């Protein structure tokens, strides 16, 4: 018998799902969208992705090993996921040294300085994206055009994203959005992803499929994505009905920009989203409203990342006041 009988408190069985497997499932769900962007943008997208992933994992290892002197956690997949998400939020052909700064901000500032996985209040990849957007606005909004110069690394032909184009064009007096939209790619191209934009935000359909995979695998619940998308649809529908000359239709807002990426992968980040279903719905509605307010009235054409970061800050408050109802209380 000896000491081979193990004793511990109940329960004596565990689910197969681990934090690590959840992280890898999210990465798997993002793969189709990433591969499509390789196809659309070519070498520039591949370089950005590799640099972002390598440096996110590398910084996590170096900081934990030499500065914090704690066991490294690179194998749990969270640094890999941050790397992938950061890459998806950058335009193809983004300068390498800026990606490295972004990776350092994401891992060093947004994640490890808060105490590592589980303790960060803001989504690390988004913090890095917003940092880069504010620090290097020119490079961050230089979107290579779809299918143009796929083998070139620098000086690719660039153009605006659909959202950026509209924002710019609407500044002109008396312009009619319906006329402007004619010069944009059609909705099928936008839906599939044959448009300009960040690496990961172009293909609404693949992101949607990946998101459904996550819901099916029980990595995320439906509450956040559905409430974000519904809010955006409802808000834009109201504005569109009020003045169709100035505001684009709901479908346009749903399939452009980083909305799908944000709703399914960034807002649902386990660490920085609320706990209770009620809280998650409120969180999603907040993101949807803020996104649309920024898109309509803000200085930037796109507002998903700002919206998510702002709502991240409200999570502790939401968790405090919107709890699950206790049994028998």
């Amino acid at each position, binding site marked *: 018998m000896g000491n081979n*009988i193990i004793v511990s408190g*109940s*329960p004596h069985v565990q*689910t197969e799902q681990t934090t690590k497997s959840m992280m890898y499932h999210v990465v798997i769900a993002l793969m189709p969208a990433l591969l499509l962007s390789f196809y659309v943008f070519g070498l520039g997208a591949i370089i950005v992705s590799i640099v972002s992933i390598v440096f996110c994992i590398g910084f996590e290892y170096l900081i934990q090993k030499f500065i914090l002197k704690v066991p490294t956690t690179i194998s749990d997949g969270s640094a890999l996921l941050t790397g992938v998400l950061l890459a998806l939020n950058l335009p193809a052909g983004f300068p390498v040294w800026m990606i490295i700064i972004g990776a350092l901000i994401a891992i060093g500032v947004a994640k490890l300085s808060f105490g590592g996985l589980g303790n960060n209040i803001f989504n690390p990849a988004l913090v890095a994206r917003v940092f880069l957007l504010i620090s290097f606005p020119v490079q961050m909004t230089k979107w290579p055009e779809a299918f143009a110069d796929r083998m070139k690394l620098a000086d690719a032909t660039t153009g605006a994203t659909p959202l950026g184009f509209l924002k710019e064009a609407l500044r002109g007096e008396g312009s009619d959005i319906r006329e402007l939209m004619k010069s944009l790619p059609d909705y099928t191209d936008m839906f599939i992803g044959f448009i300009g934009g960040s690496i990961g935000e172009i293909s609404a359909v693949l992101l949607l499929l990946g998101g459904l995979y996550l819901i099916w695998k029980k990595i995320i619940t439906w509450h956040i994505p559905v409430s974000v998308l519904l809010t955006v649809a409802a808000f834009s529908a109201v504005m569109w009905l009020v003045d169709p000359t100035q505001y684009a239709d709901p479908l346009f807002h749903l399939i452009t920009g980083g909305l799908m990426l944000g709703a399914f992968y960034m807002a649902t980040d386990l*660490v920085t989203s609320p706990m209770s279903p009620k809280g998650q719905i409120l969180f999603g509605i907040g993101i949807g409203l803020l996104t649309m307010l920024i898109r309509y009235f803000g200085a930037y054409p796109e507002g998903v990342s700002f919206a998510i970061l702002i709502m991240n800050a409200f999570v502790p408050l939401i968790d405090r006041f919107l709890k699950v109802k206790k049994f*028998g209380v």
Partner: protein
Amino acid sequence: MLKTFPKGGLHVPDNKLSEKEAIQSINLPKTVQIPIAQHIGAPAKIIVERNDKVRTGQVIAKSSGFISANIHSPVTGTVTKIDTFLDSSGYKNPMVSIRVEEDNWIEEVDLSTEVNSEITVSKEEILQRIQNAGIVGLGGATFPSHIKLMVPEHAKAPEILLINGVECEPYLTADHRLMLEKPDEIIIGVQILMKALGVSRAAIGIENNKKDAIKILSERIKNIKGIEIVPLKVKYPQGGEKQLIKAIIKKEVPAGKLPLEVGAVVYNVGTTFAVYEAVQKNKPLIERVVTVTGKSLVKPSNFWVRIGTPIEHLLQAVGGVPENTGKIINGGPMMGKALKDYTVPVTKGTSGILLIPKEKSNRRPMQPCVRCAKCVDVCPMGLEPFLLMALSDNKLVERSKDDNILSCIECGSCSYICPSSRPLLDYIRLGKADVNKFLKSQKDGK
């Protein structure tokens, strides 16, 4: 739509390996060790001495105090020792050790096998017989059964009797087999309890993965008024008293209150069978059905086991202990207690013995909490296990109390689902103990 409880819960692979195995008798062991504290409440007081001869069914320890139960000798033989031995708590506790000589029952017991369906005894007599027989809740909580029948005068009158045939713990099949093999006795037991409580309605809740049991019992109640069979959706922990009440009569037992508050009284099917035997046959509770199971066993089985039989003896009957056994569990995998070794005796609360192979015995290493809220999702009591763990670890006793830590039913769903493998329930148990200590010290202070 099948009924179930709405909040939390999860599906655990049920692994009912022994559900097709009929309950077998097992030969008596050489010695039995009978713990004197097999129930919640005060331990029984030993009334035999060393070298006394005892007969099967004879009282060897008397109930002491309001919440307590009698303990009977499960065999005929000689008391060899009254000492402390290892029990399922992991500690040594007082037990009576008896050398088994034969199986000679006391005269009062009716040993005939035919079903006696005439309920002739009075309400008071039923209560008396259940108390004398030392019946406790056989589902695992081991609360003395007669106390549930003594409704306090100013309390609400019971409206419905609920019988728990859920057996939501994975692996265990003891209640399932009992329902298949003793349906008539169980139905009579239900009628006895209805008479004792003075209620006109009873419902037997059975999870839908036991369709054969639902069918057999449904046939038996055709001509009986007031009893219904309620098939329930398979969901852990439906066998929890409060979850079962919520599932069947849609009422929530208030936190810290008894089921009687919503007019319900709950008995396990095993207990119901024991009630039948005590009232109709005058038989004390000295044996119960025990499932001996585990994926590494050649033949997982169900046995009629005398209380006090060492677990070793049961394992020999299923072909010995497999080489790679890592954990021996008294009960099911979700709520059972891991035992220190094989010498521990079967008690009234032992519904099963589960062996887990070595490679499945260790928990995965603990990772940081990623706030995935899965523990909150699955908690059937609507608690926040991740928060309670942090509060308990930081000794914030009053906050734990305010966050209803005492509502926890220790079902283990949170620890099961945690992707970071955090010992949530370990810490919640500690927190509960601390809160109870705190409440006691406050009460004593005033």
